[in-house]
């Protein structure tokens, strides 16, 4: 039962209806119902999002052992320690490096794939469904398979390298090689997903724009950059923000890539330890929950800053095009 939004045309303006008296319940209904409808999200967010966030902040201000709990208030000591911790900067650098290495090629490839699929392709549904397949496969399985592929002694990549006369690479040993391998996993998983988002956006670009451009004699390349990309700008912005959030929290792929198992250290020299892995190492290996909470909060801020920077940059670039 909804309240009348507009007055009936039969009513005269001199006699405004006293709705208050006539529709008390309905009035309450219009006011309260929308909040009731959105309430479940905010309740769940409060319980599983906001509360842990605040509680983590509280923990980060204490000397807090994972098992024994609070050992005393230390104020910002955990943060001071963190900002003077070379391992933290190392992890931050690795995270940014792997994020850039995986996200930029990934989004470009997704754009290209989407553009190809946007044309009349035979067996379109097959190709489109195929795009999503890597994303459906469990990330643990993906990481295990890729770790085998990039294996030092028995991996396929090294086998192929040797076939063409190159040296074997100990993928886990060096910074660059481990970052490449981890980025490959991330790309494999998310390129198709982003391509589908782009494709959906491309489908709604008005066709007459292309027709007009064709009449003007524009090349396909020109049409892509001057019509398609600007038209799907909101979607591109969305994928960039989402990839930033995901990329800065990279954890499973590098963790499983570590030959030492789930220790969170990320290689013999922390060469592929991400911020989330460092958090895991401190919190769940060394039981220092206070320090881990401080990392969590700094990570939260880092993600926020990166998302904002990317959003601003991407909006600039896209609007220029």
């Amino acid at each position, binding site marked *: 039962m909804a309240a009348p939004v507009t007055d009936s045309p039969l009513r005269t303006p001199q006699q405004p209806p006293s709705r208050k008296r006539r529709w008390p319940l309905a009035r309450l209904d219009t006011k309260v119902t929308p909040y009731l409808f959105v309430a479940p999200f905010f309740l769940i967010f409060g319980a599983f999002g906001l509360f842990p966030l605040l509680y983590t902040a509280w923990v980060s201000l204490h000397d807090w052992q*994972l098992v024994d709990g609070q050992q005393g208030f230390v104020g910002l000591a955990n943060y001071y320690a963190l900002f003077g911790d070379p391992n933290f900067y190392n992890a931050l650098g690795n995270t940014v490096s792997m994020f850039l290495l995986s996200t930029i090629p990934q989004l470009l490839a997704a754009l290209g794939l989407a553009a190809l699929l946007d044309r009349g392709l035979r067996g379109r549904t097959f190709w489109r469904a195929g795009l999503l397949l890597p994303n459906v496969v469990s990330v*643990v399985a993906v990481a295990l398979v890729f770790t085998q592929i990039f294996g030092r*002694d028995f991996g396929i990549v090294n086998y192929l390298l040797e076939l063409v006369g190159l040296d074997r690479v100990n993928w886990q040993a060096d910074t660059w090689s481990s970052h490449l391998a981890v980025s490959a996993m991330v790309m494999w998983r998310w390129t198709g997903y982003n391509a589908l988002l782009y494709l959906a956006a491309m489908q709604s670009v008005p066709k007459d724009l292309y027709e007009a451009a064709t009449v003007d004699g524009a090349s396909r390349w020109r049409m892509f950059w001057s019509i398609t990309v600007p038209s799907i700008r909101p979607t591109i912005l969305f994928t960039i923000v989402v990839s930033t959030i995901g990329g800065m929290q990279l954890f499973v792929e590098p*963790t499983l890539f570590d*030959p030492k198992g789930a220790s969170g250290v990320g290689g*013999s*020299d922390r060469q592929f330890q991400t911020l989330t892995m460092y958090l895991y190492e401190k919190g*769940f*290996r060394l039981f220092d*929950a206070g320090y881990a909470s401080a990392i969590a909060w700094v990570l939260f801020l880092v993600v926020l800053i990166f998302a904002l920077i990317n959003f601003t940059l991407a909006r600039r670039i896209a609007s220029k095009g």
Partner: protein
Amino acid sequence: MNNNATRRAVALAAAAVLATGVAACGGSADDGKIRITVGTFSDFGYEDLFAEYEKTHPNIKLEARKLEFDAHHSQLATQLAGGRGAADVVAIEEGWLAQFRTSKDKFVNLADLGAKDLKDQWVSWKWNQGILEDGNFVLGLGTDMGSLALCYRKDLFAAAGLPTERGEVAKLWPTWEEYAKVADRFKEKTPNVKFAGSAENIYTAKLYQSEEGYFAKSDDSFIADTNPKVKEAFLLAGGMGAKGQTAGIKPFTPEWTIALKQGTFATETCAAWALAQIKAGAGEGAADKWDVTSVPGGSGNWGGSFLTVPKQGKNTKEAYEVAKYLTAPAQQKKIFAKTGNLPSEPAVYKDPEVLNKVDAYYNDAPVGQIFAAAADSLKPNYRGTRDSKVRPRFNEALARIEQGKSNPDTAYGEAVTQSRNEVK
């Protein structure tokens, strides 16, 4: 039990469970029986014993919970912190036990339930590892111990012109220094096969032969920087790694399994519990190739676990009874027969049946005798409550040497500096 049996997938799944805090709670089953969960990792060999126990205790229903080594222990930490979710009986490995000793108020004092009477079942050092406050607090009951031996590939030794009979092989390496020399000889003849699996295993085995490692036995103070035993073991193992005599493969990983199948390396330190893992990794195809002999430098202790009862359980008394049953000599003997995990109870490892055990897979090696002899000469290694902060730093340093990114001296210096920072 084993230090690092990997199922990395399981580890991650566990991490996910741990992150969401989902865990079943103990309590009564639907049929009115008391349900006791037993949390373990690796292979404790308990399945048959559970059935037996349920037969003699009709009111009890036992339930096994098994996770990968690391995941098992870090999940226990979060469960203890959260105050719920832990199994009623939980196994803790020696290396991790040190860390949990500092949180004894989360565990039931088994002395209150009569555990003191059981003291004489175990060798004294094993019992002492599981107690606090001079024995007035009993944290855990000992299961197996990691008495050390050395596994080697007969066929690869023959190819390198080395003796293959286990008695003679043992004579090749009374000390680790001799072992390193054998590695030199081995490499000359067969340059394409590595002598050992990893520098880490050599280092760990040698270090576990000394009474103290990174921390002083007397007051738990940090001595990794001054303890000559640490440096000695590190430089020896690191030196072999630098010379390319190790395959540089982290033990108990999928890569390790493949390497075992391919015969990439010829020797591997093996604690009693590791026999089953090498066998599983190398497969039946290598059935007559592996053999077991004594480890250089006498014996050492590598791992071994304890059964504890977390306080948060609803039926701690029944849980203690289960732990008591599982660690009693009669059951420990059955476990040894099944899995080869060596019990830490003299009554068991001196039992003729145990002593006479041969392992068909390892060319009928008299594993009972080898491990029992090692157990007798074993000096327990003091771990220290902050062991887990320091140990990985040394292992990582060894890996850097094997990867050609560092040399033994530099890597040792780095490991010492890093671990000093960790414990300050």
